[in-house]
């Protein structure tokens, strides 16, 4: 009896101690797309991110190169506990190599930690909190598309420069809202403005009437919406009912996606100034890709999050091909070594703290008369060059960055 037990133990130990050699784990590159499939953020990322990922795998030509790529999808319902248990299940039991997308910063921060513990890869497109390349930075995570610092810097300083110097914040009460409020407040104060009040609303909230009343009572010139998705849409829509704009105040949508403008309609959204990393109508290449995307996504144009998923997956696959391994930490390091190039974001780089760099754009929503058709919503107000778009490395509190 004891001998058998010892033998079994020995075999088990031997199997567990199998040498780690540079090769694709079980011959399959498995990508996990995790986002909000049906709730507040479903139109920003949702099923569209899966479409984008599949387009990336197709364009990379995985089949021709003899690489097997599998995509699995899960809904984290914007809850960190659900996201965490899916991530653990994926990494431990289903041999997923990289998790992609993950909007909702609280979930992203949780998965950031799990991915680091397990040495896998995490490509964040959806979440915004700049802490992902700040104090929570990790050698296993790349923050791809945008972050709260870039939004604050783009929209915040542009609004203050045009005279909006008193602010009232309407903040979603969770990690993302707090981060966006913090980063924007810093920009406003630095540009010479003042924050006269703030209120934190539960996430998600359907009825903003009470909070809008408080914003009106503050008499701030600008009501900063430190929220996203359905929350932003509801706040702007109800703000129109309560005569916010008529009363002389203006909304600053700190995180607005093209899907939000589509849901609001140009009548309500016109004049909104916003910062994004991508717009389907920027140039020939973005137009061509976006039409392919829309054909598989019931006619809806891609948001910057979905474009970011495409770009991140493409670069990831290139790195895996070059490295001939899908070991998370090594692939992320390789992705930082290789410059990026894709039809959506052009040429770019990934920095040591995990921040992907590309220009950001300041857009203004067109008036209904200026729009020539469906999804023709933005005019480019300014291009924020790469050097100014994201938080400079010397201001970062990321432990990975050697000072």
């Amino acid at each position, binding site marked *: 009896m004891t001998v058998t037990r010892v033998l079994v133990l020995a075999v088990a130990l031997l199997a567990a101690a199998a040498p780690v050699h540079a090769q694709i784990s079980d011959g399959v590159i498995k990508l996990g797309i995790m986002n909000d499939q*049906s*709730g*507040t953020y*479903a*139109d920003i990322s*949702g099923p569209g991110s899966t479409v984008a990922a599949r387009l990336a795998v197709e364009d990379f030509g995985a089949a021709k190169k003899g690489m097997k790529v599998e995509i699995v999808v899960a809904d984290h319902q914007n809850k960190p506990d659900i996201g965490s248990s899916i991530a653990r299940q994926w990494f431990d039991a289903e041999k997923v190599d990289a998790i992609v997308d993950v909007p909702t910063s609280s979930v992203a921060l949780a998965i950031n930690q799990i991915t680091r513990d397990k040495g896998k890869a995490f490509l964040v497109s959806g979440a915004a909190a700049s802490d992902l390349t700040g104090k929570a930075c990790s050698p296993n995570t790349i923050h791809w598309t945008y972050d709260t610092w870039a939004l604050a810097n783009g929209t915040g300083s542009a609004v203050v420069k045009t005279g909006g110097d008193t602010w009232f914040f309407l903040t979603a*009460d969770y990690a993302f809202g707090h981060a966006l409020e913090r980063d924007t407040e810093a920009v406003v104060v630095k540009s010479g403005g003042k924050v006269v009040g703030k*209120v*934190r*609303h*539960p996430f*998600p*909230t*359907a*009825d903003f*009437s*009470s*909070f809008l*009343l*408080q914003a*009106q*009572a503050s008499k701030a010139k600008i009501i900063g919406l430190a929220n996203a*998705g*359905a929350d932003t*849409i*509801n706040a702007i*829509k*109800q703000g129109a*009912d*309560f*005569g916010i704009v008529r*009363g002389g105040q203006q909304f600053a949508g700190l995180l607005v996606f093209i*899907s*939000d403008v*589509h*849901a*609001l*309609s140009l009548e*309500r959204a016109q004049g909104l100034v916003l910062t994004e990393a991508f717009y389907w109508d920027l140039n020939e290449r973005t137009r061509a890709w976006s039409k392919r995307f829309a054909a598989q996504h019931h006619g*809806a144009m891609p948001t910057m999050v979905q474009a970011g998923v495409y770009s991140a997956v493409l670069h990831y696959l290139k790195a895996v091909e070059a490295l001939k391994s899908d070991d998370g930490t090594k692939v992320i390091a390789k992705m930082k070594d290789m410059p990026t190039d894709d039809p959506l974001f052009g040429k770019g780089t990934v920095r040591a703290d995990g921040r992907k760099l590309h220009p950001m754009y300041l857009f203004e929503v067109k008036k209904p008369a200026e729009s020539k058709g469906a999804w023709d919503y933005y005019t480019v107000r300014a291009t924020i060059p790469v050097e100014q778009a994201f938080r400079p490395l010397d201001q970062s509190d990321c432990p990975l960055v050697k000072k």
Partner: protein
Amino acid sequence: MTVFGIPAQALFGQLLIGLINGAFYAMLSLGLSVIFGLLNIINFAHGAQYMMGAFVAYFALQWAGLGYWPSLLIAPVVVGLFGVLLERTMLKRLYHLDHLYGLLLTFGVALVVQGLFRNEFGSSGLPYAAPPQLTGGYNLGFMFLPTYRAWVVVFSLVVCLGTWYVIERTKLGAYLRAATENPTLVQAFGIDVPRMITLTYGFGVALAALAGVLAAPIYQVNPLMGADLIIVVFAVVVIGGLGSIMGSIVTGFGLGVVEGFTKVFYPEASNTVIFVIMALVLLVRPSGLFGRTA
């Protein structure tokens, strides 16, 4: 003059907002109360039916060019018919069983309906404008009150009180209440009890759809609009007392006001304050504030 650091004027504004939210809670909990109180069915599909009412109003505008006022009649009728169909084909088979089966069935129906709509229409919602007669608002000094929201409060009050009157003070209502207490005896008197039950379920569902049409211009017409609201409405019904019509009306408006005040003093808790109250009420008075002990 300030109350706990908030100027009194701002507080009146919040009180008014609370009443508006309370109007929705009252209308929805009224429908639920009618269905539960008279039919002993826990109608978890109520939120989905509220959402369907808003969508019928949207479709009526898109496909038939029918505006808000006709939709106030069309949506309850259409969704009410759907409710009648649901009752006739599925719910009536469960009456002799435990409450839980009705709950499970209606919960399942809610998930299916919401899933279908979300699949088709996404989750960001569709725009629906208030009718031109109700746009604009009144500057009351302490706040700007949109005309449409004032209309919501007034209309809900009228509908709620009208329903209460019919059920508690008319002969038809008396038959309904009797039929719930003792269906066999009432049937023996020649009253078609199954048909009354079907029509009552349809009426409760129509009330939900009516609330949906009222909500469409305020919130986005959105497949998830019911799911978020239904949990709160259930809490309201439980606090008011399952089966008490006046209880759900009073509690609906009252809790709307309480929630409104919470949003001023401690907004982070505004999502949960109603459940805290529900827990307290259940500890002290398990049958609810106005409920009759069964």
